[in-house]
């Protein structure tokens, strides 16, 4: 056990910090979920990042990465968030599909899709959920029918983040029409600009159209776009979900930076800060540190050859609940200003606390609801009997 950074790690941090200081846009970019303009601005930022070869530092060099270990990934993320660099518009691609393709994709798929993912040239959406298949994802009905060298997709996908403007999607489809539940499903990549794809923006709680409904009518995709074999979709998606809940989706730095901002907000109230709020601010900072320490421990364990299993579900519960508590504390400090929109003259910190609070409310829902995560922990980590 050695909880000190090596000289190389310290030098790496300095390198990231210097690059970010020079390149991060001074003004925050407009939201990628509110307009095409905001989306494109984020895509342009991904290109800048990629020029510095910072797109995905853990990826092999041939796919646009730097082949770095997970500790360096954490350091990178820390500097990235500390510099208040833009959110990653391609997170579904780089954090979810990327690792999935590296594990299950063919060489041709890796060569075709990964480099453009790293540069942001192709932005990805995840198309798994359906109106009747949310928590119960195995109830997926959208189908893919083999026809010559193609699959023909049809069905109804929903809640697909970024899909309003994204270029590609990875979807879960039933390739065996006779199959039920987890069997007979396949993961298929499709171009969102294909004929037969209709995207309907859905307005979220914050008014932005951060996700979309996708109506698929006879959408043709080349059969080579299947990831893994026919019928392996469930197994592959569960691995993807593991990446999502486990390490990559929510790097700890995000919460450490938010907790630091909360501490400053509290500090600006001086002695007027109520002792109960003071305690809640301390809790927020402690939780952010606990999450970070846990991820460092997991990263070290993975580097030493370990695996991440059902404990990924504990991460997802912890960050989502901590995020809400942190932002709720900020709103309580703001008091009657909490409800103000960013352009209200009296809004504090440009309304970021309200925005962050609303965003945090989605945390216990997406990537598998927290109820489902608790079931997973109980059954797979603790070994309680299935209901």
């Amino acid at each position, binding site marked *: *056990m*050695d*909880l*000190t*950074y*090596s000289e190389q*790690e310290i030098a790496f*941090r300095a390198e990231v910090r210097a690059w970010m200081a020079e390149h991060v846009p001074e003004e925050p970019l407009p939201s990628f979920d509110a307009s095409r303009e905001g989306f494109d601005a984020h895509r342009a930022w991904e290109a800048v990042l990629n020029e510095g070869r910072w797109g995905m530092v853990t990826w092999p060099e041939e796919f646009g990465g730097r082949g770095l270990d997970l*500790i360096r990934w954490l350091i990178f*993320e*820390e*500097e990235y*968030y*500390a510099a208040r660099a833009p959110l990653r518009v391609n997170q579904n691609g780089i954090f979810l599909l990327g690792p999935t393709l590296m594990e299950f994709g063919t060489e041709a798929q890796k060569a075709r899709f990964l480099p453009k993912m790293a540069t942001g040239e192709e932005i990805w959406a995840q198309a798994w959920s359906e109106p009747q298949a949310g928590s119960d994802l195995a109830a997926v009905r959208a189908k893919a029918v083999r026809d010559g060298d193609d699959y023909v997709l049809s069905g109804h996908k929903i809640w697909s983040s970024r899909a309003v403007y994204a270029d590609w999607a990875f979807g879960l489809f039933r390739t065996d029409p006779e199959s039920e539940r987890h069997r007979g499903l396949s993961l298929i990549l499709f171009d969102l600009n294909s004929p037969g794809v209709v995207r309907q923006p859905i307005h979220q709680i914050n008014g932005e159209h951060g996700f979309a409904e996708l109506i698929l009518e006879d959408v043709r995709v080349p059969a080579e776009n299947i990831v893994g074999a026919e019928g392996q979709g469930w197994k592959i998606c569960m691995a993807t979900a593991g990446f999502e809940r486990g390490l990559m989706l929510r790097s*700890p*730095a995000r919460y*450490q*930076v938010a*907790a*630091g901002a909360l*501490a400053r907000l509290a*500090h600006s109230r001086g002695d007027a800060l109520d002792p109960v709020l*003071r*305690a809640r*601010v*301390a*809790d927020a*900072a*402690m*939780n952010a*540190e*606990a*999450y*970070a*320490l*846990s991820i*460092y*421990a997991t*990263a*070290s*364990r993975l580097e*030493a050859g370990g695996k991440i299993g059902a*404990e990924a579900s*504990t991460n997802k*519960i*912890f960050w989502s609940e901590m995020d809400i508590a942190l932002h709720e504390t900020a709103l309580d400090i703001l008091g009657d200003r909490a409800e103000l929109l960013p352009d209200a003259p009296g809004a504090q910190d440009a309304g970021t606390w309200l925005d962050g609070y609303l965003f945090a409310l989605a945390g216990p829902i997406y990537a598998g609801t927290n*109820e489902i*995560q*608790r*079931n997973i*922990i*109980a*059954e797979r*980590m*603790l*070994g*309680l*009997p*299935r*209901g």
Partner: protein
Amino acid sequence: MEFVFTEEQQMMAEMAQGFLADRCTTADLRKLTDSGDTFDADRWAGLVDLGLLGALVPESAGGLGLGRADVIQIATACGAALLPEPLVDVMGVVLPALNDLGQDALVADVLKGAAHVALVHPDAQLVQDAPRGTHILVMTPEAVTLAGAEEVTLTAQPSIDPARALSSVSMDGGAIIAQDAEAFAQVARSGAAGALFAAAQLLGIAQKAIDISVAFACERQQFGKPIGSYQAIKHHLASAQVAVEFARPVLHAAAAPAATAARIAHAKIACGRAADLATRSAVQVHGGMGYTQETDVHLYLKRALALRRIWGSETDHRNRYAARLETSAFGPDTLFAKEA
């Protein structure tokens, strides 16, 4: 940066776990406390033989010269086993303090099992096993005093935890062995050690309380099914496990050399909360049995109740953490900051 235990650290922990599994079951504990005792001399001799008492004492003074990270998992195992003998306090707090204070002869006697030193500290005023003590060490921020057993008056203070034989101490004599700044620094050092090792025991209790509840929930049937198949039961235990998962790395980081006092405060809070949630969930999951002394649940609940408040309450520790937050920078790059 390597946040995993080394093979040696892991082996030491397993050695201690093996000893405790053999020699400190809850049946052993019940037998001991039923006989009105809280100290098993044979078991203590076994612990002395293993050399664990002096784990943190330098080799030059007869110890093993190890660091806190080497023994933190041992303290967790002692918590999980509800070990009644004061190994954790002696190993983690008392002997390092005596060594800091230059009490070499006394250190040697304790290591041999020839002396026993009970400690009174501002954060732990009631002492365990004081009647067995040959010496009492009393710390205040102004002075550290070492007294012989005959120089103090003990008043028994019975605890709800049958394995904790507590006393309050009033001094009738003794020699001052450190004063002023030195005493102040010693109080801080020993307080941090006490909090860290209490936290470690709390973590062990938390996991154990979950484990016995899982076993019970798989066995106990209602409505024709094991109660563990019901989601309300699952979610109680899953939430407790989440608390454990995010207390453990804090504890381990708090055991690193130069960990900040704020990190130790955090560990004490997080492990205390995990133990509280886990032991209370254990009561609930066991139903009526959880409210008896027939299952082991109450033993874990009572030890957690005590350890959570001794060596600084949650409020004390949160105030410490908050004070640091208000006076130092906080961000991703301060995660592994060292104590100045």
